[in-house]
Every structure is written in structure tokens, then in C-alpha cells.
């Protein structure tokens, strides 16, 4: 498919267009600027995390991996990483499974009380966990659900499900309802329509929502801390601790923790983007058939 040589002339027109447009320059210019800034931000942390001492100089005096080793041992990071990944995948999976059907109904149907429901689903996103975190943890503890992974997952579902609902609604609106009707005419039940027709068409949306939920879950300190038990701490609790707990801590070890945190997320992100394309398939076929 991709091996077809693009005729030289086509190439030329394209290049000509890029050269011609000042808008393009502006856009790519700002993108480059953003990347430079980003590289500076990330780079300085990474460099610092490998530096033994770094005072008033361009680069640290000497290099070391001791900060990583320390962080790894201090927080038994392997376990924490495993828990983090388990929790976040569970949260992402469940909130997509529960959220997408709900957003489907909200996007497609009009029924009495739709607005009220929409508001209801908005609230958990709007309300800071301060309002509901402690009572939520109480409820979960009462039923023996907190203090281990179940509680962490359940608590994180509270903002995640509405988040999926909110992000998915416009995606679902974009899908032509006639396609669903056609599937029904082929005898597909609702769940089959979801599985076989909607899900593939919504892949970019689900991907985006999942990534965002993942990021939020991995970074959700409050709810996780309140409901976690000693062996269901996630990375963010450890990170948050290194960052803001009392006591003395080398800057570099915070940086190392942050780098570990980011690396984990990055791996997940790259895996996700490796297998799924955030461009909708429909557009991909029509976009530039060559």
C-alpha cells in the first residue's frame, strides 16, 4: 500500500503549498518553540536526576544513578509500578465500558431528564475531591472495599466515568446514525452494534479518552491516597510524598522519581499510540488516497 512512489510533480505541488503559506510557518514555528521549551523542561529534570551535584553551572559536576537506586528501594517501586499499572488499566477499562454506552445514550437520544443527567455526570468532574473524598472513603471502608485495590479503582472511577462520558459524546455525535441502523437491519443487537460497529469507528475517541483517563488516574493523588491500603499505593502517592512531605530530600531524588513516573506513562502512551491511530478511519480512507 505505502510503497507506491509518489509522482514527483505531486510532491512539488505539496512543497509549494507549504512554502507559500505564512500560516504554516507560524504553526510550525510555534510547534518548534514548544518543542524547544519542552526539551528544556524535560531535559533539565533528566540531567538533574543523573547528576551528583549541580550548582551554578551548565551541567552537573559528575554523573550517578544513585538517585534512581535510592528511590527504587525506598518505595519498593517495582510493586508500586505494578499496582499503578493494574489500577490504571482497570480504571480505564471499566470507565470506557461503562462510560461509552452512557455517552451513546446521551448523544443519540432525547428523553425527559436528559439535561439533569448530563449535569449529574458533570458534577464529579467539577467538584474537587475535597468535597466527597473523605465520605467516599468512609463508604468504601464501611463495605470493606477500601484499603486495597478495589477501593482505589472504585474511587478513581468517580471522576473517570463522567470524564469518558463527556469526551465521548461529541465523538458519537459524529458517527452517522444510518450506519447503526444498517447494522440493526442486519440483525445486530445493541451490544453487537457497539462491539462491531461503533467501537471500531470510535477507536480514536476511545483512545483519546483512555489516555486522558489514564493520565488523570495515575496522577490522582487524593482519592488514591484516601482509599489505598499499604500494598495498594500507586506511584503518585510515592511521588507526591517525595515532593511535598516533611523532611529533607535531595532535589535529584525528586527528579528521579518524576522521571520514573514520566517514563512509565510514556511507555503506556507510546504503546497505545503504536497500536491505535488517533485519526478516524473514515477520514483516513478519504483523506489522501494514494
Amino acid at each position, binding site marked *: 500500500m505505502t510503497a507506491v512512489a509518489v509522482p514527483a510533480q505531486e510532491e512539488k505541488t505539496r512543497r509549494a503549498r507549504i512554502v507559500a503559506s505564512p500560516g504554516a510557518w507560524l504553526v510550525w514555528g510555534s510547534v518548534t518553540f514548544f518543542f524547544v521549551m519542552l526539551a528544556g*523542561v524535560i531535559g533539565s529534570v533528566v540531567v538533574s536526576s543523573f547528576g551528583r551535584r549541580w550548582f551554578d553551572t551548565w551541567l552537573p559536576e559528575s554523573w550517578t544513578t544513585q538517585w534512581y537506586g535510592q528511590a527504587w528501594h525506598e518505595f519498593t517501586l517495582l510493586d508500586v509500578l505494578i499496582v499503578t499499572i493494574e489500577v490504571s488499566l482497570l480504571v480505564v477499562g471499566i470507565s470506557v465500558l461503562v462510560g461509552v454506552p*452512557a455517552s451513546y445514550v446521551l448523544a443519540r437520544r432525547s428523553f*425527559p431528564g436528559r439535561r439533569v443527567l448530563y449535569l449529574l455526570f458533570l458534577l464529579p468532574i467539577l467538584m474537587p475531591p475535597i468535597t*466527597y473524598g473523605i465520605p467516599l472513603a468512609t463508604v468504601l471502608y464501611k463495605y470493606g472495599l477500601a484499603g486495597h485495590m478495589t477501593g482505589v479503582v*472504585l474511587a478513581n472511577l468517580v471522576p473517570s466515568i463522567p470524564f469518558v462520558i463527556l469526551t465521548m459524546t461529541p465523538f458519537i455525535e459524529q458517527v*452517522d446514525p444510518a450506519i447503526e441502523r444498517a447494522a440493526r437491519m442486519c440483525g445486530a443487537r445493541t451490544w453487537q452494534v457497539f462491539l462491531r460497529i461503533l467501537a471500531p469507528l470510535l477507536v480514536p475517541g476511545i483512545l*483519546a479518552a483512555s489516555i486522558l483517563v489514564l493520565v488523570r488516574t495515575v496522577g490522582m493523588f487524593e482519592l488514591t491516597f484516601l482509599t489505598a491500603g499499604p500494598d495498594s499505593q500507586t506511584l503518585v502517592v510515592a511521588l507526591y510524598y517525595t*515532593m511535598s512531605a516533611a523532611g529533607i530530600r535531595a*532535589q535529584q531524588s525528586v527528579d528521579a522519581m518524576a522521571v520514573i513516573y514520566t517514563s512509565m506513562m510514556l511507555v503506556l*502512551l507510546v504503546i497505545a499510540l503504536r497500536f491505535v491511530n488517533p485519526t478516524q478511519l473514515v477520514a483516513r480512507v478519504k483523506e489522501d488516497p494514494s
Partner: protein
Amino acid sequence: MTALRHRLAERGIDRQLLLLVPALLCVLILFIYPFAYGLGLSFQPSQGGVFGAYREFFADAYQRDTIWTTLKLSLPAAFLNVAASVPIAYRMRGRFRGKRLLTVLLVVPITLGTVLTAEGLLNFLGPTGWLNRTLMSAGVIDEPVRLTNNYWGVFFSLVITGFPFAFLLILSYLSGIDPTLERAAATLGAGWWPRFHRITLPLLAPGLATTFCLTFVLAFSVFPSAVLVGDPAGTTRVISIAAYHAAYEAYDYPLASAIAVVMGVVELAVVAAVLGMRSLFYTGSTGGKG
């Protein structure tokens, strides 16, 4: 029986609405009770009657102003994130070499987390960070520019974490729009700008609205970076700091809940305004014959 079902169906109530049930249950069980508890708490301050906590908040200019401080940070940040994502995502339609890599790179900052962002900003933009060093050795400035521990530090961190978020969503929403429509507009003599703002933008509006709301909400509840790279006692004393202070330093949970409720209400007002505008726009299938 069937007659009843018929009548209900006419009003839009049928079995498909059952798809809402899991999400609704989650929110009702896990959120509504805890939230009602927190809400109730906000009306039971230790002194000052039912609205005492709210009165306390609004009577104190130092507290009340946090709303404005937060809006001043979050609205421009959300706006910039969305506004910058649109042209970049728009440029990223179509196929070109390295598109996937570029996408990944633009989305990467989402994995940074607040801690790394904060550390990175402090390291990189700090008085002896690489940026100031570069500018000073290039002779552009004599004194280091202050870019951290003030409004700008927080603003940058909101951009770094918010932009990829907005970009990912908008890129996905954008790809759900049938490219044929733009081609049709081109044959009608529309150049790229009218094509964009008359065709693509309105079709993207629902997605933009949602993206804006979500980035705004994320920015509005900014906490760690407001403390870490901001000036938490002064220019970036955002409302969540006030809530945090009440809850975790003064252990005044009624006041904390009240502040959090105020936060939710302010966010709700903005979100409602945006979603209200969104309903003025077309929502529905964005492609296909028929």
C-alpha cells in the same frame, strides 16, 4: 403493557436507556451520597449559621479574590490550549512522513505529571536555569528574567499539561469530519480560511466546547503547580489553595467544603455558558451521504 411501552417510547423512553444504568449507578452510589455529605457539611459550620461558611468565604476579600485569581489563570490557559491546538491539529490532517512521530511528540507532555513539570520549569526557567543562562550568555538580558514562582510559572505549567490534552482531543475530533466537505467548499471557491472557519470550525464546535470545558476544569482546579512553581501566597493563590488550607491546615471541613462547592459552581457557570453556546451549533453526523 405494550400500549404503555408505546407511549413511553414516544416520549423517548425505552430499553436503550438501560445503557445509562451502569454509569448512573456508579455515580449515584459512589458520588452522590459522599457529595451530598460534603455539601451538607458546608452548611454546618462551627459558627455563623447555615451559610456561615459561605459568608466567611465571601466576606473575606483575601478568600473571595481567589476566584478571580483562578479565573485569570485558567481561562487564558484553557483558551490558549484550545486555540493553539486547533491550527496544529488542522495542519496535521492528511498524510505526511513522520506524522505519527509528531503526534506522539505533541502528546508526550501529557505524561509529565505536575511534579516533573514543576521541577522542570523550576530547573529550566529558574534564575540560573538553561534559559536564563542562554539568554544571558547571548547578551539578550543582563539580569535573569523571573519566569517561575509567579503567575507565568503556573501559566506555563498549565500550558504544558493542558496543551497535549487539548491537542489529542481536538485531533481526534477533527479527524471525524468528512474531508469531502472541505473539498466541496474548495470547489465553491473557498480558500483555506473560509473553509476552515465556515465549514470545519462549526462542525468541530461541539468537540471544541467539550475540550475547552475539560481543559478549563483541569486548569481551574490547579493545585500542585500553583504551589510549586507559583506564588501560593500571592499572585497564584488559587481557590484550591484556599480549600486546601481550610481542609488540611485549619481542619475546617465545613469551610473547605463550602470553598469546594463555590469552585464547582464557578466552573459550572463557565461550563454551562460554553455548553450553552455549543447547543447553538450543529451537532450530528459530520460526514457521509444522506
